[in-house]
């Protein structure tokens, strides 16, 4: 009779003695001097990559997602790695092309006329959308705002994209100059957002009262985010301008220049190329017409004080 009682007491003691042992976590050595990984080299050994600079027409994340299929296509067609280069401003992208740190560039018309004038850019190809290689600047305001015309934005907060952008600044500067105004005299406050999608969101979120943006970016964004489109209203459209082109440095190896041009122009005939074009919302790439940028050159000459 007493044995079960002893066993119970013994069992209880054993239970109490079963200490909560220290949980076992993986052991790591933090203080090791000689071992470990260093920062990896930026480029792997092998063929030199084609360095593609893309201006921040859209934000870096959106650029990465939108242009990655195009870069994969180019890598396959040219049989060499392709490196994506992005910078926060158009001026920095121009600098990459000027100094030969980038081989080709997808840039804005306003930045192109600057590089062309200084002799370090030439047109390689242009995208064609809906049978045309043009786009417009749009002046947008919040959908629920009282602003109906451009004049209503006098004294308000306004967003520009980049100092070198055509649709994101130059066009509006020119328009104001025609009115005998400057951005400082016309608007209460101006800011730079450094990409068109940022400007569109700044208007939708009420950070600014209006912005001037690229119609191609606006159309693509509103198509992918219809709710965003409902919060915006276009109050003015500019005349058509030459579309943001693909450019190279005039001194780039002619064989490479030709290979990249052929790859772009033949993109719509290749299944992988067609997929990449669909992501870009582009029908195909065509040969450029330098005359299409004449209106931007004229505006830049007046606004930037070119002799």
């Amino acid at each position, binding site marked *: 009779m007493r044995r079960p009682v002893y066993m119970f007491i013994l069992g209880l003691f054993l*239970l*109490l003695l079963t200490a909560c042992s220290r949980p076992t976590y993986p052991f790591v050595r*933090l203080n090791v001097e000689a071992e*470990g990984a260093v*920062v990896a080299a930026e480029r792997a050994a092998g063929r030199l990559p084609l360095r593609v600079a893309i201006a921040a027409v859209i934000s870096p994340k959106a650029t990465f997602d939108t242009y990655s299929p195009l870069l994969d296509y180019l890598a396959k067609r040219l049989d060499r790695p392709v490196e994506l280069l992005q910078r926060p401003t158009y001026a920095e992208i121009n600098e990459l092309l000027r100094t030969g740190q980038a081989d080709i560039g997808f840039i804005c018309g306003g930045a192109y006329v600057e590089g062309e004038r200084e002799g370090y850019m030439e047109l390689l190809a242009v995208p064609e959308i809906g049978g045309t290689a043009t786009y417009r600047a749009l002046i947008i305001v919040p959908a629920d705002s009282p602003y109906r015309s451009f004049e209503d934005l006098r004294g308000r907060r306004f967003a520009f994209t980049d100092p070198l952008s055509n649709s994101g600044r130059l066009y509006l500067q020119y328009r104001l100059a025609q009115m005998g105004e400057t951005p400082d005299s016309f608007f209460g406050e101006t800011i730079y957002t450094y990409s068109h999608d940022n400007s569109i969101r700044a208007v939708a979120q009420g950070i600014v009262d209006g912005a001037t943006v690229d119609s191609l970016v606006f159309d693509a964004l509103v198509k992918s985010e219809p709710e965003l489109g409902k919060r915006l209203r276009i109050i003015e459209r500019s005349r058509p301008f030459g579309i943001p082109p693909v450019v190279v440095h005039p001194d780039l190896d002619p064989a490479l220049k030709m290979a990249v041009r052929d790859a772009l122009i033949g993109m719509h005939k290749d299944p992988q190329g067609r997929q990449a074009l669909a992501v870009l919302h582009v029908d195909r790439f065509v040969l450029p017409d330098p005359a299409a940028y004449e209106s931007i050159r004229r505006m830049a000459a007046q606004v930037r004080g070119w002799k």
Partner: protein
Amino acid sequence: MSDHSSRARRWLRRFWQWITGISIRYKLLGMVLAVILLLGLAVTAQVQAQLAHDLRQSLEERGIALARDMADDATDLILTQNIFGLNQKLRATLETNPDVRYVFLLDAQGQVRAHSFPNRVPPDLLAVNRLGPDQPWRVQILDSDEGLITDVAAPIFEGKLGTVRLGLSLIAGWKQPWLLPHAGFCSPPWRLSSWAGWPCCS
């Protein structure tokens, strides 16, 4: 062996006789005291265990918030190849959060992109807390030569640009070491609370 067991049995028998020989008055008093003592110990254990659990949870949440914030800020810096800006961001995170022991960024191939260690990223760290493809974050407690570390992994740009790894030092973050998961607090008497389902140890 049988000698030992018979001696233990004798000892237990004597103990039992002593217990049964005590007057009912003292037995009742003893039982009341024992219940009060056990209840007190149990309540203390429960409060401490809950406090330890809450602190550990808040530390993990802070680590996740810091790692995800770092991943978000790092995205544009990586995409614009702003290596200087990336390193400044690491430095600022360490300077403004004294309990952050380390931060390092891996690219999508698992190569080190930037780190806060003086020279190299310890190889042991690279082998642990690997993030799965669709995991929004992953927390793992690590033992180290500097004590326990809460290691948080968070993807950069949905993992397309790699992973952020951030280590929070438990000792630096917690001023009461007895609240640590492995502290003496979880010694035998407290085992009962754990056995009863309370979060004494984890």
